[in-house]
């Protein structure tokens, strides 16, 4: 099962996205972090296929976290989508400069976001199917379980559920 990491300090926003993973068929597990430091740790641990990054975080902000992720060879290849309530053009530019691959403004259109996440996971699964991930040959073709596994909450659902809510 693919993992998507959500970095978000606002509980309500976290829940909105966690609801999508819980009720709509995204096809990936969700891991949540509330600070930049936690995000780096979880990113290295879970090797998520995608990181959804809030920009304003307590302490180190999302832009700095993105830069650190992109600087770390272990996490540099993971796409980062900024999801933020900063809407000005210069904010957008700053995020792209920090290394974000996409920029989604709050409040997001949940139907559109859900669609994009589903699309991303499907594309990723297709790419992974062609090039089986190294060191995990036995878990090949995770794409088969995308739709059915939508509701699954990952290896330790209890912990994640606590974190995300």
């Amino acid at each position, binding site marked *: 099962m693919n993992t998507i990491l959500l970095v978000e300090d*606002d509980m*309500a*926003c976290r*829940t*909105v*996205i966690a*609801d*999508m993973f819980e*009720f*709509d068929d995204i096809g990936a597990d969700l891991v949540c972090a509330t600070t930049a430091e936690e995000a780096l740790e979880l990113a290295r641990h879970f090797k998520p296929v995608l990181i959804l990054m809030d920009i*304003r975080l307590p302490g180190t902000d999302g832009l700095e976290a993105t830069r650190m992720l992109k600087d770390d060879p272990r996490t540099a290849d993971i796409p980062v989508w900024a999801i933020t*309530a*900063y*809407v*000005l*053009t210069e904010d957008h530019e700053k995020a792209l400069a920090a290394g974000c691959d996409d920029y*989604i*403004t*709050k*409040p*997001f*259109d*949940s*139907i559109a976001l859900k669609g994009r996440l589903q699309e991303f996971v499907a594309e990723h699964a297709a790419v992974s199917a062609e090039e089986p991930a190294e060191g995990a040959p036995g878990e090949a073709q995770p794409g088969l379980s995308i739709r059915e596994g939508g509701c699954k909450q990952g290896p330790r659902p209890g912990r994640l559920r606590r974190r995300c809510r």
Partner: protein
Amino acid sequence: MDHESDETKRAGRGGIVHAAVATAAGFIFLLLAAEPWPLKGVFAEGRLLGWIEFQQLALVFLALGAGFAGASLVRWRRFLEERRGIERALSGQVEQYTTLVQTIPDVIYELGPDGRFTFLSDAVRRLGYEPQELVGEHFSYIVHPADIVAVSCASVLPKYKGKTTGDAGAPKLFDERRSGDRGTRNLEVRLVPKDAPADYVYGELHSSARWGRKARRGETGRWYAGVHASGKWGQPVSDGEKQFLGSIGIIRDITERKRLARNLEASHEAFQAIVAKSADGILIVDSEGVVRYANPAAETLLRRTTSELLGSTFGLPVVVGNGAEEVDVCLGAAETGVAEMRVVGSVWDRKKAYLVSLHEITDRKQMEADLEEAKEAAEAANQAKTEFLANMSHELRTPLNAIIGFSEGLLQRADRHPLNEHQNDRIGKVLLSGQHLLMLINQILDISKVEAGQVTIHPTTFDVYRLAAGVQGMAEALLRDKPDVAFTLDVEDDLPPFTSDRDKVWQILLNLVSNALKFTERGCVTLRVRRDDGRLLFSIEDNGIGIPEDKRTAVFEKFEQVQRPGGQCTEGTGLGLTISKSLAELLGGSLTLGSVQDHGCTFTLALPRVWDVEPTSENETLVGQYGCAHSGERK
């Protein structure tokens, strides 16, 4: 008459005497030789002493007489020739001097002892007189009446004690003095031209009195006295012989000189007045830095009196420069101020000096500083406002994300997690309210950015048909709840790709179309696109409630909304049209309204067709700037 001609004359006379004596002797001898000789007894047979024949003697003396006569004639003739030559030479000289006198542009005149003209050179024609008509007139005839006294003897000669009037009551003139320097120099007098009696020209008189022997009867020669340039009496003449003969002089036309002098004086006075009245302080500083002149404004500026300023040291390096230099100046004892100093080279008392003009700019400097401060404060305030709005937007969006996200989620998942009718309705209302709040936040941000000049235009080249189709799609989505309203597209054929900021055009059209749909309950909303003389016109027509005449301008103002019939207030922020109009102007176009009350209205967006602008990129996503299309509203 020279010496040689005298000799010739004397020799001529002597010759004639000799000739007469010789001829007389000849005739005597002829008489003695005549027969019958009455004195035959004394002189036998006509001979003297018997051997000299008288006849022969007579012949000899006659011949001698003829010879003397001939020689005398020759000499006389030579004398006459010489004399003729001298006369010719003299008359040539006279002609030369006459020509000279007539050629000199100054009037040369001669006055008789009674002060009347006896001669005038042709130069007097410049006054309009013929020389002949003035001869015999008194000198004062051509003098300006007011100046007659000035040229009279009494005025010019302070020590003159004689009679002040001459013959026939005419005033005695300036040059009738008897002793010392008989010349008069540089006497200025106004002369009256013949053809313009009211006018006058300035003349300058130079004259010399003539004294000497009066010509005796029969004496044709004239003896001028004092014709020398110095005008001094050159030869000693006993008092008994001295007699005033008149004077000779010149009149020089100095009108032009006077005029120039007058102009110079006038301009000098004018400049003095200008300097005195100048608002700038003007000082003349000599090469040692000492103030030699200060105008009243300089006193005011430097808070010192002229007497304090004059002779004081200016105290600033004075260098001739091209432009103004800002200098600190002492205003009185304590204060200092700022002045603009300009320095030009000048002359004072025939020595090099500087003309220094000081223009006080203390107040202006202060104002400039205040203005700069105010500007910085305004910029800071503006920046603070923008930051506040950005922060406010962020703070409002975060909870709004949850409100919209949860309500959307609940409504979407109603199939799996059903809601009852009441919950469904209320959550739908929560979603709508959230979306309205979002729209408000977006538009307030928009308008503040437009007002702060922070909106930048990114031109792209795009297909107008696709844009129109996008508008239609959006309109149809909005028309789901309005079965009685139709949306039609009317786009001109063969429109080339259009260059402008597509996102902004999209935003404007969306706003206009949603406005039109909102105010139309029954009928049709049309988007027309037409080419028009270098512009592209987007017209949105509806047949809704229209806008009253007196509200046409107001609709473009902030927070203005047209009341629906029945006083029902429309939803919306009242900012959409303000933003649209500002954006249209930013794009180089205009947004105008044509409307007929009760017959709907037409908003026309006219954009310049700038085909040659290099577009930055082709952006295909028709998404509003904040990731969410603005819904329009009528204000």
